[in-house]
């Protein structure tokens, strides 16, 4: 029964979601929105599980004074301060929570995002080494696209932007669409496996 009931629910809900795509009439037509709302509510409540896990793991780490326990103290301190300021004084502009959010969280998040620029440079350096024919093609097309996208490229030769546009619109779009078709078929196939109970990863495997 531990397996059969979730499988039956998956089958029924899966089929209902397929049917609602073709039937606009209420109550079938608005089931998608209704189920999505339920999912949002469930996911929102589930955050308690995540936070509980975080407190347990880092609490244990501090208790056992494991390597790097200082970071755990900082994490739990940050969590506590944000919860207290948020619940205690609200999150509107002018509050402590708002200040901490904009002056600690946002800059740190932006810093992580900004690292991407450096990682792109290091990854590109490795990718563009012409070790074989495919890598050579990648290098040539990348150089052409880069020259077509910067003012200097246009100043050197007016056709660089035209070539860059062609590479992006024709071979790039064709490749992307081929991948998208494969993905769409994969999604249909996986969904069918889930509905038929062949795929059971969402239930914790076999």
């Amino acid at each position, binding site marked *: 029964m531990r397996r059969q009931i979730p499988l039956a629910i998956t089958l029924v809900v899966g089929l209902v979601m397929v049917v609602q795509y073709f039937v606009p009439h209420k109550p079938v037509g608005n089931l998608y929105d209704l189920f999505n709302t339920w999912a949002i509510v469930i*996911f929102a409540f589930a955050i308690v599980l995540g936070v509980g896990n975080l407190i347990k793991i880092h609490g244990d780490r501090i208790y056992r004074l494991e390597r790097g326990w200082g970071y755990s103290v900082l994490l739990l301190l940050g969590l506590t301060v944000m919860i207290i300021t948020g619940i205690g004084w609200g999150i509107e502009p002018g509050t402590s929570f708002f200040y901490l959010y904009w002056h600690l969280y946002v800059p740190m998040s932006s810093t992580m995002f900004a690292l*991407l620029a450096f990682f792109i440079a290091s990854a590109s350096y490795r990718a563009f080494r012409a070790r074989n024919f495919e890598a050579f093609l990648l290098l040539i097309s990348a150089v052409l696209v880069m020259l077509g996208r910067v003012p200097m490229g246009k100043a050197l030769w007016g056709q660089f932007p035209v070539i860059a546009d062609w590479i992006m619109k024709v071979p790039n779009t064709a490749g992307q669409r081929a991948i998208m078709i494969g993905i769409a078929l994969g*999604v249909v196939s996986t969904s069918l496996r889930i509905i038929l109970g062949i795929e059971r*990863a969402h239930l914790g*495997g076999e």
Partner: protein
Amino acid sequence: MSEKLRRKGRGCRKGGLIPLAAFIFFLFLWDGAWAEDLDTLPPSPPREVTAFDTPNDAGGSITLTWRKSTDDGTGAGDVTAYIILRAERKEGPYKEITKLPAGAVRYEDTTTKDGVDYFYKVSVSDGVNISESPPSQAVHSKAQWFNFKRLNMLLAGFILSLGIVYFISRARAGKELYIRKIAGLDAVNEAVGRATEMGRKVFFIPGILDLDDVQTIAGLSILGQVAKLTAEYGTKLEVPVCRSVVMVTARETVKEAYLDSGHPDAYNDEIVHYLTDDQFGYAAGVDGLMLREKPAAIFYQGAFYAESLILAETGFSVGAIQIAGTAMPSQLPFFITACDYTLIGEELFAASAYLSREPRALGSIKGQDLGKAIILFILGLGVVLETLGITGFSQLFTTQ
């Protein structure tokens, strides 16, 4: 020539009295702005106003179509707007519900109550004068039980599903099904083996989306296979997640895998742990774990966004063997560049079947291939027909 233009023309041929009267009128009311008001002839009204229940919808909508006024774009060419009027009785009162610019020939009224009869008029304005169409016939909106615009999707889905079910039944009957080799999946054993030899951890990152994304489910299927290997080899596994529901499900998956491989004692809840729901907070957390733990093998299987390269480059810097898989086309180049193996799009969804060699799952992949063959045929045929100027075929594949 429009009726308005003809009437204007006739007005100018009335002899000498009219110009004299006009001259006196001008002298009496000499003002540039007043000159515009002299256009007292209304534009010709819109014709053939038709109202009907909007098809293939959930009700609450009536569509109106009409033919443009002959003074819209042609004739006097001074139409500025169409005004849609609605009433619940033919004799009125009619209330304005919206105003549309010149050139409009269609309007969808989405403010109707199902089952209530409505009458519509379409007025046309030239900025000064207005003329109205006769009222439309009575019409009421209602919900439909089938969206015929999606009939092609139903047929396509049915054919594809039939193909998948057929191959599943063949696989169940014991037929040998050929699946091409996927290098990234063949390397799973090698990656876990390497971690075992080096005495280091295996990291599994199941993407940053929740369990409502099919990529996450596909990723968790692979996690089950990886966890079986780590349990058999006695290698440490760590699964940092950024969604609470994924954490709970991944725990069940890993627990089941350890149980299946006969090492339930090696499992503990700390293998799968939550970091944060925040995208870059999660990336920072995983990067920190990588730099501290220096795992020998890292799996990225699921849905990723901008954090993909941040994670993969950090993994590269610690010398881990990396196997990625995602159906996010924009992130694939990053993984291909930074990882040793990448499962591209559909390979991610085929991975669990490929690794488990479960006949029914393999059958579904063969069915998927059949769908691909049909699509390739349709694409080829469409290209030929479009090149020959036959456009009807491609219209069969439009959806709403």
